[in-house]
C-alpha cells in the first residue's frame, strides 16, 4: 500500500452550517501513483472540491472538520498537520491549480514575484537567480515574451494566460503532486485545449502526479490514466479510464455516459437524462445515494450502503447489482417495465 504517492483512506468531512451538519465527504478512498494523472468526476456538490481541500490541508475549520479517515502522502500521515507543516508541504511538495485563476493570484503583486515566492522561502537564492527562475517557469508554461511578462501584474494577462501563471506557481517548487480543481472549466474550448496540452506535457516531462477534478468526461478521457466517479460524497466507481469507459459498472456512470451527446456521432439520438436530482447531504439516505434516481434500484439499495465489487484489477464499483445474490439486470429492467 505504502508504495502509492498519495493514499486517501475512508475520508469523511463535515461542515457545520445554520441548516445543520453537511456530510460533504462520506468515506472516500483512492490512491495516486507517481507519474499518473487521476481524474475525479461527478456533478456539482458531490464533494470533489472538499476532497481536494482535505488533501491540501485547506478545509476551513470552522465550519469544516475531517471527522474520520486518513491521508497518507509519501508514506507519512498528513491528515492533521499544523498550519506551519502544511505551508511546507504546499510550498514544496503539492502544487495547486484552481478553477478561477484570479482568486489564486494576488492582483497587487508582479507575477514573477508570485511565482518564486514559495521557491525563495525554501531555497537560498539571490534576486537574480529568483528572477531567472521566474522567467524559466513562464517559458515552461508557454507564455510568450517571458522576460517582459515577468514584471507585469495579473490584470495584464488574459484568462488563459492567468491560468498558465497559476500553473507556473504550482510547479515552481517542483512538487511531486499537482491538484487541479476544474482548471479549464472557466475557459473557452480552444484555450482549454491549450491548457490540457500543457498539463499533459508537464506531467510527462516532469514525471508529475496530477489529480484533476472535472465534470467533463471528455476532459477525463483526454488527460487521465485512472478515474474516480463520485456521487453524493462517496466513490461509486473507480478504474483505469479505458476500463471505465469500455465497461462502466455503476448505474450512475452509465447515466452520465448516456446523457452526453457525441460530437463525432453520425445519427442523432435522443439524449437519456438521469431523472431527478442528487440527495440532500444534510440528511443523506442510509442506503445507496443513487437509489432514488436509479432504474435498477432494489429493496436492499434503500436500506444498506452497497458493498464494493471488483472487476478488472483496480476497477471497482459500489452497487448492489454486482452482489451474487442480485437478480440479473435484464430481469430488473423487465420488472420495471411491467410496473409502469
Amino acid at each position, binding site marked *: 500500500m505504502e508504495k502509492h504517492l498519495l493514499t486517501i483512506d475512508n475520508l469523511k468531512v463535515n461542515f457545520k452550517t445554520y441548516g445543520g451538519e453537511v456530510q460533504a465527504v462520506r468515506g472516500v478512498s483512492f490512491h495516486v501513483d507517481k507519474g499518473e494523472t487521476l481524474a475525479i468526476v461527478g*456533478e*456539482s456538490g458531490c464533494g470533489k472540491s472538499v476532497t481536494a481541500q482535505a488533501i491540501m490541508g485547506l478545509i476551513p475549520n470552522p465550519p469544516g472538520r475531517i471527522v474520520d479517515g486518513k491521508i497518507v502522502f509519501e508514506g507519512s500521515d498528513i491528515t492533521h498537520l499544523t498550519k506551519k507543516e502544511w505551508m511546507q508541504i504546499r510550498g514544496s511538495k503539492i502544487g495547486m491549480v484552481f478553477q478561477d485563476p484570479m482568486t489564486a493570484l494576488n492582483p497587487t503583486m508582479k507575477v514573477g514575484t508570485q511565482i518564486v515566492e514559495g521557491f525563495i522561502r525554501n531555497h537560498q537564492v539571490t534576486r537574480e537567480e529568483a528572477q531567472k527562475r521566474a522567467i524559466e517557469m513562464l517559458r515552461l508554461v508557454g507564455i*510568450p515574451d517571458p522576460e517582459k511578462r515577468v514584471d507585469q501584474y495579473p490584470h495584464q494577462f*488574459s484568462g*488563459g*494566460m492567468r491560468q498558465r501563471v497559476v500553473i507556473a506557481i504550482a510547479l515552481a517548487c517542483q512538487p511531486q503532486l499537482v491538484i487541479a480543481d476544474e482548471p479549464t472549466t472557466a475557459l*473557452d*474550448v*480552444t*484555450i*482549454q*485545449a*491549450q491548457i*490540457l*496540452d500543457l498539463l499533459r506535457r508537464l506531467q510527462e516531462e516532469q514525471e508529475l502526479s496530477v489529480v484533476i477534478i472535472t*465534470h*467533463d*468526461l*471528455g*476532459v*477525463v*478521457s*483526454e488527460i487521465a490514466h485512472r478515474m474516480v466517479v463520485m456521487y453524493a460524497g462517496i466513490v461509486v466507481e473507480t478504474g483505469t*479510464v*479505458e476500463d471505465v*469507459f*469500455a465497461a462502466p459498472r455503476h448505474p450512475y456512470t452509465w*447515466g*452520465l*455516459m448516456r*446523457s*452526453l*451527446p*457525441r*460530437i*463525432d456521432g453520425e445519427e*442523432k439520438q*435522443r*439524449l*437519456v*437524462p*438521469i*431523472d431527478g*436530482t442528487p440527495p440532500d447531504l444534510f440528511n443523506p439516505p442510509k442506503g445507496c445515494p443513487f437509489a432514488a434516481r436509479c432504474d435498477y434500484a432494489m429493496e436492499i439499495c434503500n436500506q444498506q450502503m452497497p458493498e464494493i465489487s471488483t472487476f478488472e484489477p483496480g476497477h471497482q464499483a459500489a452497487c448492489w447489482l454486482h452482489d451474487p445474490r442480485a437478480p440479473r439486470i435484464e430481469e430488473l429492467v423487465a420488472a420495471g417495465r411491467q410496473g409502469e
Partner: protein
Amino acid sequence: MKDSLVEVNNLKKHFHIGNGQLLKAVDGVTFSIRQGETLGLVGESGCGKSTLGRTIIRLYENTDGEVLYKGKNVHRLKGKEAGQFNRDVQMIFQDPQASLNPRMTVEDIIAEGLDIHGLARGMRRERVTELLQLVGLRKEHASRFPHEFSGGQRQRIGIARALAVEPEFIIADEPISALDVSIQAQVVNLLEDLQAERGLTYLFIAHDLSMVKHISTRIGVMYLGKMVELATSNELYKLPLHPYTQALLSSVPVPDPTVKRERIILQGDLPSPANRPSGCGFRTRCPKATERCALEEPVWKEAEAGHWVACHLYD
C-alpha cells in the same frame, strides 16, 4: 428566402466604451432563421453571441443593418405590432438564478407575461398549472420561491415563463451552460419536445459544441463580432471550411479514450473586439493565414449550396 422567419441583414451593434472608443460587438452579420428550425450559434466568449441575440429581440437598438421578423423591421415596430412581437419572441437566459426575481412566487413569475399581455384572465391559476406540468414541474411548486429549486428546476421555470405567452420564436442564451451534464440532457429533451409539439423556432446560443450539434438544424460560428461560417449541423461537423471552425471542433474533448484525434491547437488568445486586427479578424491565430488576410477582409459568401463562409481560402 421564403420560409425564413427571421432575416438578419448586415446587422451591427457597437458600444461606446469611453475615451471615444468603439467596441464592435456585432459587426455586420447576415443570416436567416427558418420557420421551425433550431439555429445554433457558437463561438468563444466575447464574440458577440449574446449581443446578437439581444439585438434581435430588441433589448438593444441596432447600430446599423436590420432584423426582419416575418418581413417587418423589428427596430421600427410600434404600438400593437411591437406588443405582438414582444409576445411572439421570448428569451431564456443562462443563469436561471439571476433571471428569476427571488421575491416573486413561481406562479407570479410564470404569469407575469400573461398579466402584461392581458391573457388568461380568470384562468391564471389553471394556465400556470398547465405550464408547470408541461415543463415537468408540479402544481404545488406554484407557491414556492426560486431559491427552493435546483438549477435544472429553475431553468424549467424560466422555460415555463417564456412559454406562457405562446411564443413562436425563442432565443435561448446558454440555457444549459450552468447545469450539470445529467440535468442538461433533461432540459435539452424538454426543449426538443416542446419544439415538436408547438412548431417553435429556436436560436440556441451555447459554447458546448457537442450539445449544439445535437440540438441544431444549422449552426452559425461567430468570431470577433462576425459570422465566419454557417452550414447544416452535419455538414459543419463533417466538412468545416473555416480554419477557426476546424480548430474549434478539434478542441472539443471527446468522451471516448479509444478515439485519438488530430488536434489543432491555436496559438495565442482572442484579440479584444475593441482592437480588431485588420483584414480577417482571425488572422492573428490562423494557422493558414497569408499576407492577403491582413490586407483584405474576406467577404461572406455561399461556398457551396447552403454553406456560407468568410475566408480567403475559398475565393
